């Protein structure tokens, strides 16, 4: 009885054994078949994935996205290939046939599975083994490419964005914005504005590639600057007119003859300015203003005069609103140029009415409180350096500034500059200073933002003095109005300019230093400096070295140690008695 289990168990065990081997063999063969079909597709997917990974790395995306997409595509491709190869996949019967062949069983396994005969005894030898194939090479290559794409150093490149539309130059944009505001505000004569717009459109109609040519940029900036200047002149003329109206209104019927003459003069100048302006006010306003005179104003009733004053004030407000863009652009350039450095204004003239009023008069500013005497005054060292520089200034400068020998230097007043940076700065004052700063005499100093560096900068003789003609003005100096003409000198200290498109307005930003500091792994020191406003006597620099003298130069024939001729530079060393052939031979030898 003890042998029964073995009798029954053997066929069951051998069947289980052979079927298990058949299933394993079937899986292996089917996987190999699928793998070989998938390999070319997988290689293609790997290539695409490699490109995607490189592109993603270049664009700065995380690797998980291209790798995830590649994996998803590979999975879909694997399923697709599985569907394609399903008809040719083998079953257990095929696997048994393989085992039959491999073990020489004469299809006993196939027959036993069909119920014919017994299952043969187990045989452990493997039937098929893996080997390197083209499919494996393809898949390995695809994986290697993907791995390399993930690991090779690759910088982030800018994402492929469509090129942005080219914008017109900033100056042209400012100009267009300004004309648009002027038309909206109806601040100037439409005909003059139309002329200005045509000029701007002419620039705009150029090919986009020519917008940033030097000529176009210069033309744009010139047109913008001139337009700004015209607007500011118009504003000044309107301000003068309003000043006259104010004085008339303040004085009532008791206008002194002298003041009346002055007002008439101011009125004539303002009206002349309006007539000559390239951007005059509207024709109605011009006609209305053209009939004005101090006498006519005086004859006006208070209501009419007040209306005139409101009209002028309103016109000025319109102008200011319209030219806000231009002022902003100027202010930004001022900020960039001055670099937040202090600007001092001082004047020479009579002690009375005082330096502050002199400066106010010099700048043509009538608004009170513009010059804030409470600002931080220069230090004693700075004051001393400035005064010494003034005394050393060329007489021409003194003359131009209206300073005369014996005239008292009024003082040094710090202005709330850099222009545009002080919240309380008045636009009038800033505009006036702007004319000074951005005029031809604009000077730039190498200057550190620290106050203590001012003295050092001045000490090396780099103080720049700008003469400013005092405007003629009348009035009671004691009461705040200047009666006498005077002069002023504006000391402008700013950082190096960035240079304009035409090369003007500032120096080239970078120059090599006096002494090279270049070393391996180091950097060359650069400095910025503007030499455009050097005056005579300024030292450009010193160079140490020796002249290159040829000590071995021929000094003439020598007989018995005596020197008959020392010769001179560039003299020929060849003897005249040499034949041309000898001469050519020597020339070739010493070549």
């Amino acid at each position: 009885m003890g042998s029964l289990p073995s009798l029954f168990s053997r066929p069951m065990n051998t069947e289980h054994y052979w079927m298990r081997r058949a299933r394993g063999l079937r899986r292996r063969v089917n996987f190999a078949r699928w793998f070989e079909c998938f390999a070319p597709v997988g290689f293609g997917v790997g290539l695409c994935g490699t490109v995607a990974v490189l592109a993603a790395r270049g664009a700065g995306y995380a690797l998980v996205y291209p790798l995830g997409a590649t994996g998803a595509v590979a999975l879909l491709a694997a399923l697709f290939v599985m569907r394609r190869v399903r008809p040719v996949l083998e079953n257990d019967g095929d696997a048994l046939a393989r085992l039959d062949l491999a073990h020489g069983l004469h299809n006993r396994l196939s027959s036993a599975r069909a119920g014919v005969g017994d299952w043969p005894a187990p045989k452990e030898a493997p039937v098929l083994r893996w080997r390197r194939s083209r499919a494996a090479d393809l898949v390995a290559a695809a994986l290697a490419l993907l791995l390399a794409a993930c690991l090779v150093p690759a910088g982030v490149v800018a994402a492929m964005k469509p090129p942005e539309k080219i914008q017109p130059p900033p100056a042209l944009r400012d100009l267009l914005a300004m004309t648009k505001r002027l038309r909206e505000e109806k601040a100037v004569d439409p005909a003059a504005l139309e002329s200005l717009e045509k000029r701007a459109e002419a620039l705009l109609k150029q090919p986009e590639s020519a917008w940033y040519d030097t000529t176009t940029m210069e033309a744009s900036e010139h047109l913008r600057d001139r337009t700004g200047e015209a607007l500011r002149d118009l504003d000044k003329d309107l301000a003068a007119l309003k000043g006259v109206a104010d004085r008339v209104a303040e004085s009532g019927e008791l206008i002194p003859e002298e003041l009346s003459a002055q007002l008439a003069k101011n009125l004539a100048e303002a009206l002349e300015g309006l007539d000559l302006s390239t951007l005059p006010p509207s024709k109605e306003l011009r006609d209305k203003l053209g009939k004005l005179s101090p006498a006519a104003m005086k004859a006006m009733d208070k209501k009419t005069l007040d209306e005139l004053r409101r009209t002028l004030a309103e016109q000025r407000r319109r102008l200011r609103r319209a030219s806000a863009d231009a002022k902003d652009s100027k202010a930004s350039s001022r900020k960039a140029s001055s670099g937040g450095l202090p600007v001092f204004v001082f004047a020479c003239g009579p002690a009375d009415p005082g330096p502050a009023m002199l400066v106010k008069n010099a700048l043509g500013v009538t608004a009170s409180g513009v010059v804030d005497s409470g600002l931080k005054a220069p230090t004693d060292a700075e004051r001393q350096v400035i005064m010494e520089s003034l005394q050393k200034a060329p007489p021409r400068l003194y003359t131009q500034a209206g300073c005369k020998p014996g005239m008292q230097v009024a003082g040094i007043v710090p202005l709330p500059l850099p222009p545009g940076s002080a919240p309380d700065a008045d636009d009038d004052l800033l505009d006036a200073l702007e004319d000074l700063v951005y005029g031809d005499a604009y000077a730039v100093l190498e200057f550190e933002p620290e106050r203590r560096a001012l003295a050092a900068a001045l000490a090396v003789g780099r103080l720049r003095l700008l003469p400013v003609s005092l405007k003629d003005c009348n009035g009671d100096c004691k009461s705040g109005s200047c009666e006498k003409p005077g002069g002023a000198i504006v000391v402008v200290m700013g950082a190096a300019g960035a240079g304009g498109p035409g090369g003007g307005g500032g120096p080239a930003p970078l120059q090599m230093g006096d002494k090279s500091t270049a070393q391996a792994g180091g950097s060359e020191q650069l400095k910025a400096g503007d030499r455009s406003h050097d005056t005579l006597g300024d030292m450009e620099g010193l160079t140490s070295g020796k002249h290159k003298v040829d000590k071995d130069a021929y000094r003439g024939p020598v007989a018995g140690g005596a020197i008959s001729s020392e010769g001179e530079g560039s003299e020929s060393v060849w003897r005249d008695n040499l034949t041309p052939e000898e001469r050519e031979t020597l020339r070739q030898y010493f070549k």
Partner: protein
Amino acid sequence: MLPPNESEIAEARARLASLRDALANVLFGQDELLDAVIVGLVARGHLLLEGLPGLGKTELVKGLSKALGLDAKRIQFTPDLLPGDITGNPLLQEVDGTRRFVFQPGPIFANIVLADEINRASPKTQSALLEAMQERRTTVMGESHALPDPFFVLATQNPIELEGTYPLPEAQLDRFLFKLDVRRADAPTLARIVLNREMGVEPKVDAVLDADTFRSITALARRIHMPEVVAAYIARIVDATHTGDATVRFGASPRAALALASAAKARALYAGRLNASFEDVRALAPLVLRHRVILDYTAKLEGLTGDAVVAAILEKTPAGPASTPQSLAAAKIG
């Protein structure tokens, strides 16, 4: 149809082995030929023996008939041989005072018919064998006559003589299960023949089987199991004979597939196995297909033979599943 059991197989194998031993005393040194002849007979197939004269073809047939205890007749095919000379003729006889045609059976009415030099008869005469070989009966003057069972045709033809011969038509060739090459024996075998034979004296062969036993063996061969994978292999081989190129005009017919399957079963029985195998098919495919592949004349001019075509087909048609992936290689089994 129930598959045979082990004991039946063993008994049949023993009897066939005794038959082989008996034939081996007749034909020396032709073991493969004897095996093929026995397998062909077990498969109930007709055999075409091709070989030079004097190699023992007739002796083989005679010895076979004696060993099997079957009736054997020999027909010498000549160009003037008529179909009636093979199948038999109706003769006018007077019986009981009346005259009528009485069929006189020809030499084909035997269990084993030796059609000697069959290609010397005219196609008309050759065609007299068609019905007999396929349907195992003959029809004379509208009257069918069944042939004895078993019925085998063992035909011979001389491959070197072309003048005055009529090549067998394809339909005739297709009815032969095997085409066997009878090769000359080597020197030791010739020495053995010289020592054991006398000119003009037929060797003595004992009957090892009777007709009934042989019929039971052939019936047993039909019950041999044919696995599906082996059947598929046969189908792939036969299908591959239709190469589609210029070398082969016509491939083997479905009858060839049936013949190959029957032969494989007979060989399995001869080897004492319950089922046919890939090995059986590979061993018998040349014998079954070599005369069924009709070559193009250009291929014949280039010396291509049916054997070469079949060998190439077997080479490129692996046994078992269609193919093995390139990533897998057959492991060496010690």
